[in-house]
C-alpha cells in the first residue's frame, strides 16, 4: 500500500491532468444523460402509445440494450458509427452511452407517466385541451417530478459507466488513471486518486439532483 504522504503528493502533482480528465468525464456524462433523456422520453411515449407496432419498437430497443453488456454496445456503436459517418470519438462515446442510458430512462419515465392518475388526463381533456397539450402541460411535468429520484440514481450509474469510454481511447478519468498508473508502476495510488475524483463528481451530481427535487416539490408543501 502507498503511504499517505505519497498518496497526497501524487494527488496534488497530478491534479492538472486529472482535472482535465474529470471535465471530459463530466462532459460525456452530461451529454449522454441529456441525449438519453430525449431518447428515453421518445421511447417511453412510443411504449404507451395506442399503436402496437410503436410499442413493439420500444420493447425491442429496451430488450436489446438491457440484454447486452454496455462495453459490447460501445464497441459496436464506436466501430459501426465511425465506419458509416466520420464521427468524432467524443460523439461516438457520448451517443453509445446515451443509447444505453436511454433504455433505462425510458423504463423509468414510462412507469411514472403511467402512475399519474388518469383523472389528470380527463381533467385536461374536459377543459378542451388536446391529448398532446395535456400530456405536455399536465402529465409530463408531474411524471418528471416523480421520476427524479430514480433518474438521479440512473445519472450516477451513467457517470460511472462513462469509465468504459476509456476502451475507445477517450482520455477520461479511468483511462488517465490506468495510463499514469502503469507508466509510473504505481497502479494502486492512481486508482485511489481516481476514486476520489469519482466520489467528488457523484457528490456534485447528488447535490444537483437534490436541489431539483427540492425546487420541484414546492407544490407539496
Amino acid at each position: 500500500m502507498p503511504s499517505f504522504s505519497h498518496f497526497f503528493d501524487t494527488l496534488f502533482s497530478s491534479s492538472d491532468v486529472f482535472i482535465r480528465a474529470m471535465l471530459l468525464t463530466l462532459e460525456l456524462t452530461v451529454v449522454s444523460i441529456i441525449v438519453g433523456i430525449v431518447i428515453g422520453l421518445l421511447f417511453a411515449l412510443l411504449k404507451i402509445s395506442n399503436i402496437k407496432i410503436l410499442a413493439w419498437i420500444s420493447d425491442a430497443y429496451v430488450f436489446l440494450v438491457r440484454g447486452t453488456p454496455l462495453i459490447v454496445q460501445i464497441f459496436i456503436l464506436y466501430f459501426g458509427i465511425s465506419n458509416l459517418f466520420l464521427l468524432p470519438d467524443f460523439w461516438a462515446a457520448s451517443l453509445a452511452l446515451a443509447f444505453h442510458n436511454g433504455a433505462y430512462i425510458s423504463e423509468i419515465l414510462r412507469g411514472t407517466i403511467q402512475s399519474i392518475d388518469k383523472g389528470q388526463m380527463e381533467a385536461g381533456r374536459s377543459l378542451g385541451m388536446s391529448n398532446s397539450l395535456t400530456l405536455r402541460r399536465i402529465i409530463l411535468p408531474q411524471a418528471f417530478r416523480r421520476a427524479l429520484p430514480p433518474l438521479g440514481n440512473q445519472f450516477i450509474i451513467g457517470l460511472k459507466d462513462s469509465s468504459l469510454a476509456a476502451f475507445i481511447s477517450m482520455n477520461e478519468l479511468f483511462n488517465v488513471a490506468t495510463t499514469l498508473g502503469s507508466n509510473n508502476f504505481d497502479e494502486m495510488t492512481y486508482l485511489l486518486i481516481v476514486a476520489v475524483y469519482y466520489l467528488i463528481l457523484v457528490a456534485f451530481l447528488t447535490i444537483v439532483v437534490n436541489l431539483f427535487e427540492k425546487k420541484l416539490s414546492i407544490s407539496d408543501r
Partner: protein
Amino acid sequence: MEQKEMIRIRNLNKSYGDLHVLKDIDMKVLDSDVVCLIGPSGSGKSTLLRCLNYLEKKDSGQILIEGTEVKPGTHDINEIRAKVGMVFQHFHLFPHMTVLENVIEAPTHVKKVPKAQAIEEAKALLAKVGLSDKADVYPSKLSGGQKQRVAIARALAMKPDILLFDEPTSALDPELVGEVLTTMKELALEGMTMVVVTHEMSFARDVGDWIVFMHDGRVVESGPPKDFFTNPKEERTKEFLQTTIF
C-alpha cells in the same frame, strides 16, 4: 318564452363488454335548467354524464349539443369540450400548479387568451367562489371543499354553456358539502345550464328544475322535483326515495 334545447339525447346505448350500462336513454336539457341525475350506485348516471363530454364513447344513439350532433372527424371534440365543462368527484386539480395557474391554464393554452386578461378573469372567478386569498397557493394546501370550488372556477374559466357535475360532493367531509352546494346554487341562479349527478336529495329538490331517476341503465322516471319527490309514479322510485335521507 321557449327555452333552447341545450342537450338532446336519443336512444343512447353503451356497454362495457357484456355489461349493458346505458339502455335506450332519452333525455333533454333546456337552457338555464338544472337537471339532477339521481339513482342507486351502478345505475349508469356517471357513465351518462361522461358520454355528454365524450370521455366515454357511446355505442349507438344520438347526442345533440346545442342542436348539433357531434361526430369525431367532422367536429373538433376539443371545441365541444370547451363548451361543456366538467367538475369531477375527485376534483382532479393540477397539483403542480397554483390555484391561479390551474384556472388560467386552459384559457391561455386553448383559447389563447392573453395572460394578463386570463389572470384578471381568473381572479374574478376565484372571488366568486370565495377563494380570492388562495390564488397563489398549491392545491395540496386546500380542503376538499376549497379544491372543489377551485375546480368549478377552473371549469367556468372556459366560459362553458353547460356545466356537468359528477358527484361533486361525494368525496367531501360532511361539514364541507354546504360550501360547494352554495356555490352551485349561485351558478344555478345566474342561469347556468347544469347537469348534476348527485346523492344530495335536498339539493335536487330545492335547486333542480328537472329530476331524472335512473336504475339499472334506464331512465325509470323523470319530472319536475315537486311531482317527483311528493308523488312518484313508479314503484322503483318509491322504494328508492324511502331509503334515501334528505
